[in-house]
């Protein structure tokens, strides 16, 4: 979405225009869903978090002003939600792969009705996706978050450093090492 169009859409949404909120969901929904999915490794949690995110946006958009960029503001809220969920699930088992999401042998596709089945089956069948998920799971959680926010949030390294309250050099060191780990685990060149 172009900057001027984004500003106009945000202003309309702040005034309560439902169509403006729908436009924001269309513009950022895929990136937010992707972020939540890679952060939790669960389609169920990703949908749950996306829904909660939009509800928070309805409540909090009034507090957003034009001084800062919208994406970092949006993904800062998303990152805090992930952090809160990780804290709540601290005693639970670690991130699980998509194929074991239900905890039993039933394929994930059987859990979702209608047109979702085709998409889910494609994802499950994608070796690269499974390989990537396994590689992401092996990363240190903070490093994983930084890489995901860099990609999905399109945040600058300075913004990421501000979000995690750590030096810029530390962010770069973690991201560099994390990307190299993913490359090695996935056989990238």
């Amino acid at each position: 979405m172009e900057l001027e169009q984004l500003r106009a859409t945000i202003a309309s949404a702040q005034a309560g225009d439902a169509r403006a909120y729908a436009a924001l969901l269309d513009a950022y929904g895929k990136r937010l869903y992707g972020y939540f999915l890679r952060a939790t490794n669960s389609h169920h949690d990703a949908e749950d978090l996306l829904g909660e995110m939009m509800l928070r946006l309805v409540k909090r958009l009034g507090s957003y002003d034009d001084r800062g960029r919208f994406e970092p503001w949006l993904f800062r809220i998303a990152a805090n939600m992930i952090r809160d969920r990780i804290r709540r699930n601290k005693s639970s088992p670690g991130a699980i792969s998509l194929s074991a999401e239900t905890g039993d042998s039933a394929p994930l596709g059987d859990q979702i009705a209608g047109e979702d089945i085709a998409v889910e089956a494609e994802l499950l069948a994608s070796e690269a996706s499974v390989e990537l998920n396994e590689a992401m799971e092996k990363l240190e959680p903070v490093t994983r978050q930084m890489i995901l926010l860099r990609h999905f949030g399109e945040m600058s390294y300075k913004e990421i450093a501000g979000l995690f309250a750590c030096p810029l050099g530390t962010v770069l060191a973690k991201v560099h090492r994390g990307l190299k780990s993913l490359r090695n685990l996935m056989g990238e060149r």
Partner: protein
Amino acid sequence: MTLDERQYESLGRRLDGAPVRLDADQQAAADEIRRLERAIGPKLDTPVPPAAMIRVRQQMLAAIEQTALRTARRPHSRLRPALYAGSALAAAAAIALAVWAGMSLLSPKPVTPVVEPVATVTIPVDKLVDPAKMDPVERQIDLLAREVTLAAVEGQTPQGPNGLDARISVAEQEVQDFYLDGPFPPPVMTN
């Protein structure tokens, strides 16, 4: 190559678009980071199940509708400043009253003892100084005399209709009446 924190910081500023000069190692690291981001980034993307998006949209629209209904049920926004002003005045009056009441308690007026001494008992000084020397009857009279004197000194604050508590209750009622029946008409509630 291994970079230190300072080198990574310069690298970060350069990758964020700042015109920072990099050495050979930093430049190699920058190129590697960019290459890996381009290779791995697209693999992170994932399609959203359409049904999931529909559910999220419906949930969001329902929340927007509920928010709009809640806003419509509140008192008319024009009356809100008046209500806030009335609340502030009432709060200031209550605070002033509390301060006045506190000051009154700190410097109480002399009170008229409720119980007056019913008898004056004179006891020889030497007996007062050494109660052990008193006989039982004199000791009993001495105790009674002390109790009577103590009651006269303590006294009691009158709690009748002109008492301090009653005056505070009257003042509280006046503050409440001001707040409820002040110069502003009560809000009209509409559905």
